[in-house]
């Protein structure tokens, strides 16, 4: 019994990363960042507005949060749809009550299906970023590059037309990528993407078509991960968010501006029994000194201006 000798060879064993997408850099070695008006913590509230197709193909995996029952899985289809009909309007009220500037991450298919909701979002004028075509249109290792390129072009063209915005940002469905996704995003005019969770601040990411900025959108703190995946209580989610807020504010005082990124979903936190927990978290965060609620692109611009 033995393994091929290449198993004990380590071609990438040298300084820095084992790939050339970005440079190795410890957060504490970077130049401190200042947010506008002396603020310490940028609050990025990112709302996933998602369409989970009933006829889910699950290629190459079933998207977390998607259909799990035999067709037609009305239970999950309609419960996800609840977020776009009901939950989102609870969110909007909460945002206005606490003066939050949200960012909306939309599947382009949802934008096509819900013109009324698009009008509401356009009227508000908050930033819209692209969350891919729909939750079953995954990007994945081994995917045909031409197929993926067409998928990205369709999603961006549709969302840019329907939103009237140039759409600078991207989150892949399930944050899943192929090896080509960053290259294709840059080729399609995307400036920043949020799939890589390896930092608490933005950093530059190389592609074949110029640089992207990776924006730090924590998965570990998102509502779906904490409440659905981990099965923690809603109160625990609030506690974790408040602890993160305290920690990052404190770190920002010593090391320069930080970002608290909350990725939330109206089909989950928009439920009647959960919305008060979102409100409690927003109340806590916005009552701290030094918090700046801003859209993802605004935070990016402010950061970029100081690099």
């Amino acid at each position, binding site marked *: 019994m033995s*393994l091929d000798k290449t198993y004990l060879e380590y071609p990438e064993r040298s300084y820095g*990363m084992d790939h050339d997408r970005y440079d190795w850099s410890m957060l504490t070695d970077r130049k401190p960042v200042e947010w506008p008006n002396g603020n310490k913590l940028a609050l990025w509230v990112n709302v996933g507005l998602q369409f989970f197709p009933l006829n889910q193909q699950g290629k190459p995996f079933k998207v977390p949060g998607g259909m799990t029952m035999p067709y037609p899985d009305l239970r999950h289809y309609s419960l996800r749809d609840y977020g776009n009909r009901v939950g989102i309007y609870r969110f909007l009220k909460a945002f206005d009550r606490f003066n939050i500037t949200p960012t909306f991450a939309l599947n382009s298919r949802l934008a096509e299906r819900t013109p009324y909701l698009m009008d509401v979002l356009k009227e508000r004028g908050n930033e819209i970023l692209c969350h891919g075509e729909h939750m079953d249109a995954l990007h994945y290792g081994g995917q045909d590059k031409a197929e993926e390129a067409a998928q990205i072009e369709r999603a961006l063209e549709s969302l840019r037309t329907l939103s009237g915005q140039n759409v600078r940002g991207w989150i892949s469905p399930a944050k899943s990528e192929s090896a080509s996704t960053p290259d294709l995003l840059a080729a399609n005019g995307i400036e920043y993407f949020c799939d890589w969770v390896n930092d608490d601040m933005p950093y530059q990411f190389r592609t074949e078509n110029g640089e992207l900025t990776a924006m730090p959108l924590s998965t570990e703190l998102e509502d779906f991960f904490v409440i659905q995946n*981990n099965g923690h209580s809603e109160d625990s989610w609030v506690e974790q968010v408040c*602890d993160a807020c305290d920690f990052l504010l404190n770190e920002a005082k010593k090391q320069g501006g930080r970002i608290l990124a909350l990725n939330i979903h109206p089909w989950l936190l928009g439920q009647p029994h959960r919305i008060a927990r979102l409100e409690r978290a927003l109340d806590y965060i916005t009552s701290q000194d030094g918090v700046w609620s801003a859209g993802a692109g605004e935070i990016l611009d402010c950061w970029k201006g100081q690099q």
Partner: protein
Amino acid sequence: MKEDPGFYDYWAYHNRPKIEWPNGAKVAFWVAPNIEFYELNPPDNPQRKPWPQAAPAVAGYSIRDYGNRVGHMRQMQVLDKYGVRGSISLSTALCEHHPEIIELCKERNWEFFSHGIYNTRYTYGMSEQQERDMIRDSMETIYKHTGQKCAGYLAPALSHSELTLDLFAEVGTELFGDEGGIYTCDLFHDDQPTPIHLRSGKKFVSIPYSLEMNDTIAYVVNKIEPRRYGQNIKDNFDRLYQEGADSGTIMCIPTHNYQVSCPHRLKAFEEALEYITGHDDVWVTTGREIAEYFLENYYDSALADIAKQSGGEI
């Protein structure tokens, strides 16, 4: 395949010869930060997939990278605050990839022990010579970059062969005599050190490294809340401290910079450390120091007591 790995004999957790830690401490307390490097494109292993999906495994790879970019410094600052020197379970290729982290730990006189080369290269399927070569490479790398004679082992990603402990001990002796390859963290059968049977007959000990207190087990496998993790640590300590009055116990918190150092989790860990180090009779130490102390003072009496029990004497 064997029914029992044969590393140790049954040894009841009562009436054991009393262990007294230095300065009358009841608990030997150590923190073992795993500082790991996972590869984006590791080679295939016949028995275990490194990532659940085809490359690139963005989610798994990037959160682990977070541990090195962001988390390490946070955990190190908390350990500094409470006077804890880490005993690092090290993916030794990190010496080449991220020497800045190695330097920071060296400055603090932390211990480095081997956790293989990469946490995406598994022992499964290796020949004896291959596993020996991999272990030797890891121990030589630690010595080259830190000057430390590696004393401990935790197999990469807890992937073992039947010979893992033997090989580690033998390579340790070849490289460093009695100073190298003296303890393992791979066994979870006890709250006190256990002499381990090796084919070489070398004096070698299992030092408790807890899976239950391991942050990744708590957060990823058991999916518990940060505050509950903090409470579990305190409860674990309370009982070991109480029992340590009868005979010294060991408490270990194994951590990962990508878990414990997230902004929503560090507070619970810090509170637990504050609680533990706020007690008088705690020996805040490292894996190597515990192993050396036990081998020097209690290994022989432990062997004699185990032999007595194995003979049926109560």
